[in-house]
């Protein structure tokens, strides 16, 4: 999708590896949960979700539409949420972004960021109600966590765009 100006004839990675790379980066984002910190307040941004959204919005054919479900399952195994919550929420987000793509054909980065912000807020708020009883005092932390995650999205898109450029231009249709 993005053109490598330095060498237009660079074939990039072999197709199998180029296909696997987006999956691996999203799973690496989920694996950020194993950093050796025992957090008292849940502020750590869900990097798996951020990477998924970045791939979905920056390089839309890198991941299949159904990839959100298995990637969500992997995230559920690590994140501490009840199993199936990320699977459900990420799938719904992926489908919703597809609807946006049908309606809002010409988009720039700010609109992508807005869509991603909505998706992040939806996933985190819905995840909170799926996992934690309503009376728990986690809402202030949740708002901060949503803000941190939204602010991380541009960095994730830069990273994804860089990987996508390195990966080569063997585009495969959806």
């Amino acid at each position, binding site marked *: 999708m993005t053109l490598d100006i330095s060498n237009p004839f660079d074939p990039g990675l072999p197709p199998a590896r180029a296909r696997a790379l987006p999956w691996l980066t999203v799973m690496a984002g989920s694996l950020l949960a194993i*950093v050796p910190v025992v957090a*008292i307040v849940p502020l750590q941004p869900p990097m798996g979700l951020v990477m998924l959204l970045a791939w979905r919005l920056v390089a839309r054919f890198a991941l299949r539409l*159904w990839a959100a*479900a298995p990637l969500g399952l992997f995230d559920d195994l690590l994140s501490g949420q009840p*199993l199936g919550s990320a699977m459900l929420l990420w799938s719904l987000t992926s489908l919703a972004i597809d609807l946006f793509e049908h309606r809002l054909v010409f988009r720039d980065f700010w609109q992508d960021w807005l869509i991603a912000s909505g998706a992040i807020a939806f996933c985190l708020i819905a995840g909170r109600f799926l996992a934690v009883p309503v009376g*728990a005092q986690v809402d202030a*932390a949740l708002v901060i966590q949503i803000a941190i995650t939204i602010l991380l999205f541009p960095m994730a898109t830069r990273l994804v765009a860089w990987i996508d450029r390195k990966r080569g231009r063997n585009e495969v*249709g959806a």
Partner: protein
Amino acid sequence: MAPARDRRTGFSRRRQYGAFLAYVLAVAGAVVGVVLLVASTFNPPAFAGLRMTLGSVTAPVSGAFVAVGDAVDDIPQAIGRYFFVHSENERLRAELAQSRQLLLTARTIAYDNRRLRTLLAVRDRTPDTVVTARLVSSTGSSGRRFALLNAGRWQGVAPGMAVRGPEGLIGRVTEAGPAAARVLLLTDPESIVPVRRTRDGLPAIAVGRGDGTLDIRSVNTNVRLAKGELFVTSGTGGLYAPDIPVARIRADGGDTAVARPFIHPDTLDFAIVQRAFMPMPVSAPSPRP
């Protein structure tokens, strides 16, 4: 961004079916997610095997990171110790002289205590330690407060065991895998610990709030909970051994008050896994008809 031309499937049947199938699979993924969610809501330990097998892979990795972090952390401390060794020596000498007297008193009290207990014929159970291991990571992005312990079934850890640190209670084991176990921390919104006030033995429960503090709810009504009061486990329910420090009240309250737990699990210190204090009795075999 320009519209994606690749979205058009054209006249190719293969691409048309492929695009349709992608939507079907995406919706199917969401439906499977709902099914798994319902299953894990009604039976939380379901899929524990899957989770903890993965945990057994990640826990040693996190443990290695901890070791590296400790090594880096040690360097400035070693330098500091080198410069302050004399002042520290003097301070420790003074402390030793003080604590010698305290130790003598404590020994007398301990002896008295033992004697009086035998007189009363109290049947004491001492909780036995299963293993000492490290908490290596936690669920930092979820509202639930779980930590991963770097020891599992191979080390003898089983669900239902109590976990305590040097300063106080940490939580209990909810799931155990081959080499990792998941610990429900005290501050989790679904954690409840029976406690009592040290001053007069007032029974209460400590419920996690999810933001690093606890709610102490008195069992009796018309109680004043004052700032600074200490609560320890009461041993009710048989899971936690009595007299493990739990929390200190942070602000005055009535029947309910906010308390700060004694443990700071973010220091990644060692945790001691103990067998359930009074294990559940084995159910009697049902009589044959």
